[in-house]
């Protein structure tokens, strides 16, 4: 097996991007039809959202705690530990909440979506559906896509809330900051629209991107066990890169 030349690799990845974009349009086209399968969508929200709660909550708590510790150290150099609540809340809402949730979501839910759809492809279940005049895009792909878009912002909110509680735990209960200062400075500088909703837009976009990549990789996987394995890996790698790149672009625009 000879190594493909650079030009072929480039053309190949360009074709993947184009195919993913076309796939997005066919999902969007299948969404009206998939509204008849609302129960399936609800089941997918349960699967990608509710089942991810434990990891999201645990990680949110620890991220909040470590953020409080690190920022306390940094702020104490400038004698500004009173701003701990503000800094933790702003970095969580604007940046870490959506991004870390998206990375965890890609690892927890994205992989299982890819593996599930990939196995359906490998075991010809998708073809069987087509034979029975059931559009797999409407019955399998679109519900998972919608579920990803709905679940991501909710998970990011839970992550943020637990992060704030973790920071409060470390900052107030452990490091002895004043409770009133912690909340007072936070509520004085955090804005609903500029900070909380800004993070929500990000997590919405990340949810759509991850759901698209996961379903696309699963749907187009080579129907072998090796193909499914590679597709799952590609889901995590591609989602992480795209999420971080998109995060930069969105931050620049939403500033």
């Amino acid at each position, binding site marked *: 097996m000879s190594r493909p030349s650079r030009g072929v690799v480039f053309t190949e990845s360009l074709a993947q991007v184009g195919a993913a974009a076309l796939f997005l349009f066919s999902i969007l086209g299948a969404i009206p039809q998939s509204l008849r399968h609302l129960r399936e969508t609800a089941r997918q929200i349960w699967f990608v*959202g509710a089942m991810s709660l434990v990891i999201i909550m645990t990680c949110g708590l620890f991220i909040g705690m470590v953020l409080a510790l690190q920022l306390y150290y940094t702020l104490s150099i400038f004698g500004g530990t009173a701003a701990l609540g503000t800094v933790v809340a702003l970095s969580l809402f604007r940046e870490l909440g959506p991004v870390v949730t998206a990375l965890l979501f890609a690892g927890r839910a994205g992989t299982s979506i890819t593996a599930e759809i990939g196995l359906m492809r490998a075991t010809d279940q998708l073809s069987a559906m087509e034979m029975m005049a059931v559009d797999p895009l409407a019955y399998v792909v679109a519900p998972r896509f919608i579920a990803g878009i709905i679940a991501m*912002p909710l998970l990011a*909110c839970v992550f*943020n809330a637990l992060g704030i509680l973790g920071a409060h735990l470390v900052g107030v209960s452990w490091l002895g900051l004043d409770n009133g200062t912690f909340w007072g400075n936070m509520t*004085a500088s955090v804005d*609903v629209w500029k900070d909380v909703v800004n993070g929500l837009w990000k997590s919405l976009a990340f949810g759509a991107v991850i759901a698209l990549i996961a379903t696309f990789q699963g749907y187009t996987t080579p129907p072998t066990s090796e193909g499914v394995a590679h597709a799952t890996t590609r889901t995590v790698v591609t989602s992480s890169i795209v999420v971080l790149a998109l995060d930069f672009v969105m931050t620049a625009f939403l500033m």
Partner: protein
Amino acid sequence: MTQQRRSFQVGTGLFILLGFAALAYLATQTTSIANYREGATFTVKARFTNIGQLKLRAPIKIAGVRVGSIKSITLDGQTLDALVELSIDSRYSDLPDDSGAAIFTSGLLGDQYVALQPGGSPDVLKDGDEIVLTQSSMQIEDLIGKFLVSGDAPKPNTTASEPTAPTGSEPPKPQ
């Protein structure tokens, strides 16, 4: 089967509920909306020649205790001074009408707030009244300027001679 379907439906509902509860918590408890929780308030006006960095919703304090917030800041077109509307909790409605208002800074670099200094008049401030005794924000630039000018006696001489020295040396520069 029905039992299983029921349980995931309940779980999905719980998850969505939890997500929105977290959002509501973030929006109301950690942001500036938390400061809106005020019951009945009354509004009094105060004029300042300089409000410094005073912002909307900045706290109003009596003896260091928060009693209200800044409702609006506008420039009076006639007198050209800042007209600030103070929204004060109705529980503190028996403020004497000769109370003073001053703009202070919390800490060296903190945010600015309005401090009310209660007077001794038997009449109380009513909704729409104006506080006459006001003290503007302390501008750190003005303080530094005053300090530099009145620092020591020989300084005025040197500062006075300073402008002449550059003007004397300036004509050769263009050539």
